[in-house]
């Protein structure tokens, strides 16, 4: 609703010159990725500080623009959907180009990693059984069922194109109601497994999908598009060796790895920073 936040005095503490501020959104994977970026930069001798748990993209984008944050882990397709809700998404490269075109002049995307973590509409095991949904089912199959289902997701899911709006316009889905939860976090997981909601916005890297036997519905129209982990950076804030470091990280990070790291945090309760450092070490990036 408010893309135009340039006149907002979202000043925060302006980054100290020479310090790279790495931000993150308010979910665990974002924190982990931020830690990975930050530690990788630190390994290159840069001064790094963190600004974690900021909130939704709606908030973080403003902070990126005014330079409060230098680096933010992003998902290219989701970012594009935010910047240009109507844009189609054909390939990672195309998406990245489109994003760069739409981005504020001071911002840019670095190279995307193969690791992908998309929004998805998943249904819980009970619902899947009731309506005969399988791993092969698509969102289009929900057309008749949707009016009987309550869908859950983060509050912003309600108003985003990569959310209720797109589900309606692209697949013609009209759900019974929407229940605002969190960004694929514990609330959503719990609500879905407890059948508070029958369908929910779950990130595809979420380890609970396997654990709770959620069924992820296929998205043939690419509504949720591509969601490659990609660093969004402020052009002035990051020196070249930083750019190189982050590109190196992207090169090594794939979906498999991301799933593994997420599981370590969510299921094994390890600290994201420790997980990040351990992975960087194992990947030889420290």
């Amino acid at each position, binding site marked *: 609703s408010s893309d135009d936040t340039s006149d907002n005095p979202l000043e925060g503490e302006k980054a100290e010159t020479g310090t790279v501020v790495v931000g993150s959104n*308010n979910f*665990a994977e974002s924190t982990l990725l931020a*830690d990975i970026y930050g530690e990788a930069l630190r390994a290159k001798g840069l001064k790094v500080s963190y600004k974690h*748990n*900021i909130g939704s993209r709606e908030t973080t984008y403003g902070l990126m623009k005014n330079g409060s944050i230098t680096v933010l882990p992003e998902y290219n397709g989701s970012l594009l959907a935010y910047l240009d809700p109507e844009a189609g998404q054909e390939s990672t490269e195309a998406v990245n180009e489109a994003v760069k075109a739409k981005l504020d002049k001071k911002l840019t995307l670095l190279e995307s990693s193969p690791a992908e973590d998309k929004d998805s509409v998943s249904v819980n095991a009970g619902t899947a059984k009731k309506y005969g949904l399988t791993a092969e089912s698509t969102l289009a199959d929900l057309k008749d069922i949707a009016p009987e289902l309550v869908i859950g997701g983060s509050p912003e899911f309600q108003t985003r194109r990569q959310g209720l709006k797109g589900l309606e316009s692209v697949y013609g889905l009209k759900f019974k109601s929407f229940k605002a939860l969190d960004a694929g976090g514990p609330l959503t997981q719990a609500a879905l497994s407890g059948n508070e909601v029958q369908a929910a916005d779950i990130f595809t890297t979420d380890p609970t999908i396997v654990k709770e036997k959620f069924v992820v519905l296929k998205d043939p129209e690419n509504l949720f598009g591509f969601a490659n982990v990609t660093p969004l950076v402020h052009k002035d804030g990051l020196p070249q060796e930083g750019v190189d470091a982050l590109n190196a990280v992207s090169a090594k990070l794939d979906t498999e790895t991301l799933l593994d790291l997420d599981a370590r945090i*969510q299921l094994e*309760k390890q600290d994201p920073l420790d997980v990040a450092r351990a992975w960087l070490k194992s990947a030889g990036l420290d």
Partner: protein
Amino acid sequence: MSGFFDIPSDLQHSWAGLIGLHMREALLPVAAGLLLALPLAQVCGRFRWLYPPVLGVTTVLYAIPSLAFFVVLIDYTGQTELTVMIPLALYSLVVLVPAIVDGVRSVPDETLAAATAMGFGPVRRYLQVQLPIAAPAIIAGLRVATASSISLVSVGALIGNQGALGNLLAAAQKYDRPELAVNSVLTMAALAVLCDALLVLLRVLLTPWMPRGGSRRKPAARREELTPEGAVR
């Protein structure tokens, strides 16, 4: 890593650090509120017609949820401690203004008349007679405001790591670690109790002139128990 005092790295503070942060975010607003409330209460005491509308306005302010306050303020003060502290200061006004006004009004007419008759000017009378006698009522107000403030800081977690110990609550959810929430709640409760005890101690130190113990029958002794019910959320 899943211990009671293992604070997730993204909070960027140790447990003790969070406590320090929390106290700062909770107590500065109360102090600011007191500084604001004193002149405001004095004005309300002076112009009695002003008191009801001031009470009305503060009550409405007090009905506005803290989160809404925070969100609206973000646009002006950014994602900073200040955003959390401004509403808290306003909330403390809601408790402190009536506490001071009532406290000052509770000074017996005879005492005031005696002071006036001795040639006390209005300022001197306020500072040397009314305020000291209102001290127990003011401290009672401070007790409520402080407890409330300590509790409310935690909501700051929702606007991006600005909730000090409250951030533990967000982390508890994010990482599904209930013990962090327990830690957060207990620590905040302990801080509130501690501050309360300190304020009681302060009251005892400031008011050697109040009857103690057995003489509960006297009305003066009753006052201290009568904590104003304000913005405890």
